[in-house]
């Protein structure tokens, strides 16, 4: 009778009941968050969990408010999904965290309201009062990332200066001192010389062209261009929300990038696997990679065989007077949801941990934008003082505006650069002017669409 519908359903039912019994016996009490008095912080970085755990500021906060700090770790995609869904509900709920760390590329999503009195529409608590009542100086460049409609909605947690990590052994074998290349033009020339020499060598030994390239880049996107633009402080969508795709400088950078990624250029796209960049450098497929500071750390773990065989150099520039030899890549900010359970406590949290921090620095700070990282084993980078280099560069990073239309802008630019790279060098200039004008028009149309929402 029970088995009328076959064996499988009763079997599954049995399994389910067994599992239920196991779970029931382990009931840990109420799971509703309303009975969870702890101060809940969401983060996506395992490093940060350690930092919170060891922080004396946290202890101070706990003694002030009487609430224990509980840090919940989840992957950035999950965090963003949950936070966005909760904030979209636009109502107080216990499911909201009391403070949340947001990855910079996800921040733009909340900056969508267009009216000047729509500060409450962002879904995050404005922090202007908190900042004005404090003496702390935060890196203005990073603060710019968190600004929208003249209010600051999050605090920058870190600065990620970008450098180039390269293998001196490979370059030296070709007789090139790549660190001498302080401009992009010189860099490209040096890389091409490297490639010519290494091509000759590999072609003769095996007859197969292994295709060694000098510089590794991320596939399919415009990170390279964004990075170089940021060296001069230019964002694709500026802080007033206007598209800048038609700018002369964007044209120059697009042309430069097209040259670099062309088939006779100097770059190789990393595979899409998460650690492809590390293995590419390890295997020698590329001789240099672009490294935001966290990649430098990860390299020690992902490619231990490279110890002592790599060095770090600042980015080359286009114009030594106007550009800085570094850029940013991502970043973390910390924010308070508008409908968080106790905004007073949350503001206290930010104040104690970030504006009045008494944490001794194994937390290096560059202009008081806290940069929680452990010093790298200098031996890995051939005895170079990486921390000092990155700290110095971090202080010079230029601001980048955050916009909800950033994703579209970047993919438009990526498409233009890609197509330009397939043209012959002589044709590129004129084509780029037209393509960027078109892209600018498209982007402006989309920005306008999102703003003009009446009738």
């Amino acid at each position, binding site marked *: 009778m029970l088995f009328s519908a076959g064996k499988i359903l009763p079997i599954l039912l049995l399994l389910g009941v067994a599992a239920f019994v196991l779970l029931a016996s382990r009931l840990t009490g109420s799971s509703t968050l309303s009975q969870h008095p702890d101060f809940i912080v969401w983060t996506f970085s395992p490093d940060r969990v350690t930092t919170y755990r060891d922080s004396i500021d946290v202890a101070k906060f706990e003694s002030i408010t009487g609430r224990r700090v509980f840090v919940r770790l989840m992957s950035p995609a999950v965090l*963003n*999904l949950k936070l*966005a869904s909760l*904030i*979209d509900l*636009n109502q107080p709920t216990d499911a909201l965290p009391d403070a949340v760390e947001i990855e910079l590329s*996800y921040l*733009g*999503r*909340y900056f*969508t*309201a*267009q*009216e000047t009195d*729509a500060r*409450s*529409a962002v*879904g995050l608590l404005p922090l202007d009062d908190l900042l004005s009542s404090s003496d702390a100086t935060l890196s203005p460049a990073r603060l710019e990332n968190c600004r929208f409609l003249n209010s600051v909605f999050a605090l920058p947690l870190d600065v990620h200066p970008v450098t180039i990590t390269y293998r001196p052994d490979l370059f030296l074998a070709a007789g090139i001192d790549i660190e001498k290349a302080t401009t992009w033009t010189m860099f490209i020339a040096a890389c091409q010389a490297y490639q010519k020499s290494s091509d000759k060598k590999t072609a003769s030994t095996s007859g*197969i*062209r*292994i*295709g060694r390239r000098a510089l590794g880049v*991320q*596939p*399919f*996107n415009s990170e390279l261009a964004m990075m170089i633009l940021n060296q001069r402080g230019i964002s694709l969508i500026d802080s007033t929300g206007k598209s800048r795709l038609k700018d002369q400088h964007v044209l120059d950078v697009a042309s430069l990038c097209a040259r670099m990624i062309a088939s006779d250029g100097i770059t190789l*796209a*990393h*595979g*899409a*696997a998460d650690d*492809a960049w590390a*293995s*590419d450098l390890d*295997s020698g*497929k590329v001789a240099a990679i672009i490294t935001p500071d966290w990649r430098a750390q990860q390299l020690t773990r992902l490619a231990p065989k490279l110890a002592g065989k790599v060095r770090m150099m600042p980015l080359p520039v286009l114009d030594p007077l106007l550009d800085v030899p570094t850029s940013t890549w991502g970043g973390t900010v910390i924010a308070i949801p508008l409908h968080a359970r106790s905004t007073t406590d949350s503001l206290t949290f930010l104040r104690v941990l970030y504006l009045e921090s008494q944490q001794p620095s194994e937390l290096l700070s560059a202009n008081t934008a806290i940069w929680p990282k452990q010093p790298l084993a200098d031996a890995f980078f051939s005895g170079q003082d990486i921390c000092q280099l990155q700290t110095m560069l971090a202080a010079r990073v230029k601001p980048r505006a955050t916009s*909800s*239309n950033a*994703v*579209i802008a970047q*993919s438009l630019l990526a*498409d233009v650069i*890609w*197509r330009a790279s397939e043209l012959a060098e002589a044709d590129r200039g004129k084509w780029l002017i037209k393509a960027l004008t078109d892209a600018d028009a*498209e982007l402006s149309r989309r920005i306008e*669409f*999102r703003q003009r*929402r*009446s*009738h």
Partner: protein
Amino acid sequence: MLFVFLPVVLFGTVLVYPMLRGTFLAFSSAHGESFSPNPDRLSLNNFRFLLSDRLFWLAAANTFGFALLVSLFQIPLALILAFMLRSIRSAVMPFVRIALLSTHLVGGVFVGLMFLQIVSPSVRSAASFDVLSDPRFTLLILCTITLWTTVGITALHLQSAMRSIDPALYDSARIDGASGTRQFWHVTLPAVRGTACVLWLAGIIASAQLFELPFVLYSQTAGPRGSALTLVMYLFQTGFASGDLRYAAAIAWVMMLLLLVVSVAFVRVSGLARTQTN
């Protein structure tokens, strides 16, 4: 009769609210976004923009091209496979079944990651040819992987249907001198027509909703030249990455409308709506 209506009603109520909210979002347009203090006003703004949205039509072309290609091969391959399975000895059967099932059971993300390792040039260091960065290969890669994932389970579905065919029919066909192929054509096919049609329709719809695979293979971007931009990917980018829930809802609705046309046509042509009684 209550027993009959109970599931219908249950299904209805559970699915209705989220869909209604989605509809409302698509037709609304207001200052600011979903948490704006201003009341929503109904408008067709979203749809007007969509008509001229280059990215939407690119996504639509990619998606329907993909769905067409997959649906052309999926059911025929599965049918042939299922037919061949009939003659496999029962001792070997469980292993065959596991093998076929496993490609589907392991989940889309895992399959994507696995293929990433295989196809990614960082593994095969000798190749300077990165197949993932060539836009001409995108469709081929996506189709192949999807077929690899789904043909097995589809064949098993069909095999379940084939089992209910009266063996006497096969016997009489054999007596009449029909070869294997003719048996397939005249005995097997008509009997499994209903199941095959459901599977075909489901396959088309599922293909049109392709998201996870290109998401993983192309690292959450639209791939080379946007060739991996599917409709649901565009929906996801608009809704989650840009936070524009209203336009995302509009995209979803137009996509569903297009699919609806295809589905209705399919249902009518295949006669799926008739209660088939023998």
